[in-house]
């Protein structure tokens, strides 16, 4: 019995070393998705593949089928055993994956997170899609541009207790007070992250405020919900709809001219940036801490704030470009 276990272990060891010796000397990078079927992550992966091509590295993409945190841990453990050089991860569960990533870091693997961060000591950098400032400003700037920077506007939010949404709303308020004094915020209504409730809230906002010129939806179900309300009220075009959401969920309304702008960062660029950063760390081109800027291939020079590499300003999808994005 003892011998058989021993021989099996040797055989396994031989297998593992075989695998290692097969490596072509290229850097190997593990790119971890939150979930494989999700269009958003499929698009992130596209960017990662583009970076892999630019950098000539060996990219392994994996992720659970259904955003399963335990499966994410398992994949990271396997990559540690395989001896990858870099792990780039989006964390479904911050705490549980951090433990696995910390282990990877101790094994000398360069760890970068993107999209959803781990605990700060479990990775070197976080490729941050956008700051609250960037998102809030882009939303109010779009609304101002569409309404000639005057008239009443309302906000449809997710829940009143959501920290990140409230932060964006504060940015919107501050920016409006400073730059667009002729605009007036007449109401903030929560849709409980439900599209149908967003539609009801927007219907009420429209009838309670007949002079409403724009609705800003800061949560993704809020955008199509508000658009449907504007459409049913026959106010297509006269009340502008802008919001933060996925192009795929808003394509029909954007093409119809009900929703004017959907704002989001580019997931493709985010995947590209995260892989670029991981490889730069492995090659020693990016300091492990205190970098001020980072040049990410075709994206050019990006700012680093603390341990976050900022992707930059979010982009606006409108009738002209929305068909270029299939997530």
């Amino acid at each position, binding site marked *: 019995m003892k011998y058989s276990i021993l021989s099996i272990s040797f055989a396994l060891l031989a297998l593992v070393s075989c695998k290692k010796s097969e490596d072509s000397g290229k850097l190997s990078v593990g790119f971890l998705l939150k979930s494989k079927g999700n269009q958003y992550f499929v698009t992130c992966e596209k960017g990662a593949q583009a970076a892999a091509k630019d950098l000539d590295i060996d990219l392994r993409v994996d992720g659970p089928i259904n955003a399963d945190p335990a499966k994410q841990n398992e994949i990271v453990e396997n990559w540690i055993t395989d001896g990858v050089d870099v792990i780039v991860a989006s964390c479904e569960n911050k705490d549980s994956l951090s433990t696995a990533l910390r282990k990877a870091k101790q094994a000398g693997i360069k760890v970068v997170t993107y999209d959803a961060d781990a605990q700060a000591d479990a990775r070197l950098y976080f490729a941050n899609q956008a700051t609250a400032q960037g998102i809030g400003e882009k939303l109010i700037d779009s609304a101002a541009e569409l309404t000639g920077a005057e008239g009443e506007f309302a906000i449809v939010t997710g829940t009143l207790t959501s920290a990140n949404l409230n932060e964006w709303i504060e940015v919107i308020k501050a920016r409006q007070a400073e730059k667009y004094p002729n605009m007036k915020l007449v109401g903030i209504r929560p849709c409980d992250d*439900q599209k149908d409730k967003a539609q009801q809230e927007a219907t*009420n906002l429209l009838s309670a405020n007949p002079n409403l010129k724009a609705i800003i939806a800061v949560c993704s179900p809020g955008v199509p919900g508000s658009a449907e309300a504007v459409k049913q009220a026959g106010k297509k075009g006269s009340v502008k709809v802008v919001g933060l959401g996925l192009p795929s969920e808003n394509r029909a309304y954007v093409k119809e001219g009900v929703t004017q702008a959907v704002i989001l960062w580019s997931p493709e660029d985010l995947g590209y940036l995260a892989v670029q950063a991981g490889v730069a760390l492995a090659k020693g081109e990016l300091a492990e801490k205190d970098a001020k800027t980072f040049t990410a291939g075709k994206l050019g020079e990006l700012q680093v704030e603390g341990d976050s590499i900022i992707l930059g300003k979010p982009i606006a999808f409108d009738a002209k470009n929305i068909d270029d994005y299939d997530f």
Partner: protein
Amino acid sequence: MKRYSRELTVGGALVLLMISLAIFAPNFFDTQPMISRLASQMPALILALGVALVIITRQIDVSIGSQFGMCAVIAGTAAAAGVPMPLAMLCALVAGALMGAANGWLVAGLGLPSIVVTLATMVIWQEVLRLWQKGLLLSLPDGVQWFGMSQGTGQAMVIGSTLLILVLMAWAMKNLSSGRRIYATGSDAEAARLAGLAPKATTFWVFLLMGVLAGVGAALNLVQSPQIQPNSGEGLELKAIAAAVVGGIAITGGRGTLWGVLLGMMLLANVNPALTHFHQPPYWEKAIQGLVILLAVAADGIRIKKQKHLK
């Protein structure tokens, strides 16, 4: 008069709310928003009617929001796959009937407590939806919204068919023996059994009917926009139960009318629109709704205490 005191109180409160809206925010009664608002409240009303029957039999069903979501996604998936609209809607009803029958069998057949059974099925259907749809919106083909007709006709059909269901159910509860059996089961299951009224079978059929109504509600919600959200039923169980209780369905079973449920739903569902029209912050919505529910339950408590006192 005294028998319908709850309906009168709730109706009175609703009338007061409408009068103050008419004075301070007449925009509330503009035709289009009024009709869009009403149409969007109909699916929840259908669920409230169903759960009212469940409560009258002295049971509870908290899985109805999840059932609603499942039915919506099943019908939506069928429609997206090219199944004709009437057949897709039938899928919703059948799916609802199956989920309702499962609850009914566990409660009436195995004698398990309905709160535990439906809590479990609520979580199961919720997680199935999460795994299946991953939270993404499901786009419906053209011709689903408003049954492929104009917005006005579609909305009229949604509101009309809901009211028709309400009238039929209210009539059946009063005049059909099956309706009386539901009351009898809830007021005293043992007496109902001794009278040969088969309370177990009644309970089973009420849960099954609840599932069918969840399917009807989902279908009537489906036709109101070109996309559906898999979690569209989340929180709906509380809205429906609250409307039933406020409308005078006694949580102790055996009492209440479906007309009361209509009034309860209209009162609770218009708290939030009223706040928006009075330009008040949304923080009050849930507090006010909670207060209304508490008043209704307190009134029930006082009634029961008085009855015991008389005995």
